């Protein structure tokens, strides 16, 4: 049916690495009720990208990464300031901060339009389809640059989560208790924000912000519905993230052919695939799913038990 080529394997690998890297900080963001932070950061880094690009003059440089990561952390900092000093609801302060930063970034980009070909659309959609073409040699193998970068980010995120698991867990569930037992909840907050910013920016060039936002939120939310234990949630979200990437690419290749098209954006489909997995968990989750809730309601009404068909 579809012709699966080595190129497709690489696309799935890059997507899966990115999705898994995002899912780890995403779980903690979800528990802290800060899921929208990924969305905010990914919009707000635009001025960082723009300035770094103007300064360094190249599009795939380390400077761009640093610039965007700095602005990413600043987004979290500004949001904190506005909500603390201005006593503004956190969602609103996030909204004020990221829209302002995005507008500044847009303005810089348009002002410098002659010198730059940094398309905001490129930041948004990414170009995961082309990542296998840009390779670096590692240990004698040609590996897509994006795969190498995202693998390192995944390793960093894994290392931080494993090393600071206790601290992260405590400060996610009970920041006050964390502070009293000597865990610096503020430091944990900014560590998490830094991880989110680094992951977001590293994924940007390769896969665009759509996958990043989706993978920061949706696989952790799916896992959250399936378990109540944090280690299990982390593992399930990693698996869901990887499956979303694979399923998304398969969907990008197959679904359009049903309607007579050749193919479509893999990034968009990966987000959609994550959404479908979430939908499945939402309906079918063993104890919290819609179906089992329905069944429990029937039982509590003492009506005869009958198999519910979906």
């Amino acid at each position, binding site marked *: 049916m579809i012709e699966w080529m080595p190129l497709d394997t690489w696309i799935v690998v890059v997507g899966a690495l990115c999705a898994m890297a995002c899912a780890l900080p995403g779980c903690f963001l979800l528990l802290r009720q800060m899921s929208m932070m990924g969305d905010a950061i990914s919009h707000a880094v635009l001025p960082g990208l723009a300035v770094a690009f103007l300064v360094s003059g190249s599009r795939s440089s380390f400077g761009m990464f640093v610039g965007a990561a700095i602005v990413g952390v600043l987004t979290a900092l500004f949001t904190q300031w506005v909500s603390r000093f201005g006593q503004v*609801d956190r969602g609103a302060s996030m909204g004020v901060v990221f829209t302002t930063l995005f507008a500044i970034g847009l303005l810089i980009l348009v002002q410098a339009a002659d010198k730059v070909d940094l398309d905001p659309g490129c930041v948004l959609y990414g170009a995961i389809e082309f990542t296998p073409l840009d390779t670096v040699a590692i240990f004698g193998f040609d590996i897509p640059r994006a795969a190498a970068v995202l693998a390192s980010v995944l390793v960093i995120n894994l290392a931080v989560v494993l090393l600071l698991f206790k601290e992260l867990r405590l400060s996610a569930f009970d920041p006050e208790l964390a502070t009293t037992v000597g865990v610096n909840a503020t430091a944990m907050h900014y560590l998490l924000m830094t991880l989110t910013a680094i992951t977001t920016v590293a994924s940007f060039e390769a896969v665009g912000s759509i996958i990043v936002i989706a993978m920061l939120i949706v696989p952790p939310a799916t896992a959250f519905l399936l378990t109540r234990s944090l280690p299990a949630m982390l593992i399930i979200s990693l698996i869901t993230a990887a499956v979303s990437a694979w399923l998304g690419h398969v969907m990008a290749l197959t679904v359009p052919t049903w309607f007579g098209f050749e193919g479509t954006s893999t990034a968009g489909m990966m987000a959609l695939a994550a*959404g479908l997995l979430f939908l499945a968990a939402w309906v079918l989750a063993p104890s919290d799913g819609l179906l089992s809730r329905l069944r429990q309601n029937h039982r509590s009404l003492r009506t005869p038990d009958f198999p519910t068909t979906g």
Partner: protein
Amino acid sequence: MTTVLTQLAGEGASLADALRVLLLEDYNTRLVVLSTAMLGLASGFIGSFLLLRERSLMGDALSHATLPGIGIAFMLMVVAGGSGKNLPLLLAGAAIFGVLGVGLVLAIRETTRLKDDAAMGIVLSVFFGAGVAILGMAQAMPEGSAAGLESFIYGKTASMVLADFTLIAVVAIIVLIACLLMLKEFTLLAFDEGYAAAQGWPVRTLDMLMLALVAAVTVIGLQAVGLILVIALLITPAAAARFWTHDLRRMLLIAGFIGAASGWIGASLSALAPRMPAGAVIVLVAAGLFALSMAFGPARGVLIRGLRHLHVKRKIGRQHLLRAAYELLESRRHPETELVHNTPIAVAELQTYRSWSPSELRRLLRTALWEDHVDQLDPRTIRLSESGFGEAARITRNHRLWELFLIHYADIAPSHVDRDADMVEHVLGPDIVRQLESNLDGPIQPLAVPPSPHDLSAAGATP
């Protein structure tokens, strides 16, 4: 139609140009400025309710959720044989998916343990991803050209036509009227959803209605300022208005005004300067107004709260100093008359009385000198001034009244009342003090003031 923007690109703006833009003499500028101002007004109104419901980011979720609707509407039109560029139909598609997205957010929130933010994030990212995938297909359609659909993401303010203006004006007026008609219901919903439900209001219907209005503003805003920046108009003016007032009606007006001003000023600026995208400039003007409000807003601005904090801190410092001084004087009360005399006090003595740091005490004394509560006799000795002595007696008395109240009526052990009294005495108003006096009439002696040596009953005895 040439836009002001392109006209000015070469020569830069002169004063005449500026006047022409500000006075709305240019047809195109007039459309753009009036449209964005009306959009700002409407989104300021509805955004205020969102802010009070702590749902500011709903506009974000909603605006991203519209994308698949735009793509699907386009494809259906092309399949039906059109060009796919019918604006009302595209907007209808956007609105349907916007409402669908909002419905899903509410459904996720109601039926899972997930919170608002996660529900919004899921809908936002999945719908947007689906939209991108659908547009990816639409762009491959040979019959129609999907180019230009992207203007929904970044806006196309500068090239607005009369039809856009009419649409924005109609929707904005509908939203304003709906907000005014439903003012009572929305207010109740914003402040106490549970109470509203208990009173029998159709909470869920009202919620959907409010979000439908948000959807309407978002969808028309997509055209004017673009998908990502329309969010700013829903959030920033409302958040700025919150600094100016505690009254909801006034907040709506102020938010509407800030939104309209952002649209007006932003669109004018972008018409004046070459290469200033209107959406971005409008957002930055709104952000500037937000920053001003946050700093200087009289209701909860940073400056006013800082001043209030400073005032209270100073008051507390003064009260501590004067009470310490009075209690020191009290300890060397005259053995026979039991009267407290205003004798000089050594600074070192004060220092040991409360655990002040030397610099803290110096600062307190400096303030007290300036307020004319103490006189400096020599570098190491002070004395309470006449007014300071009276104030010190009053403050000490209030403190004792409150302590006695706690002992008698709150059953707190005498050894524990000092700290509690300390917490409260600084906010005691004269009314409360009077009430304390009447409550505690028995156990407390009136403030010791020596009896008059002469008869006061004769009229005119005191000059």
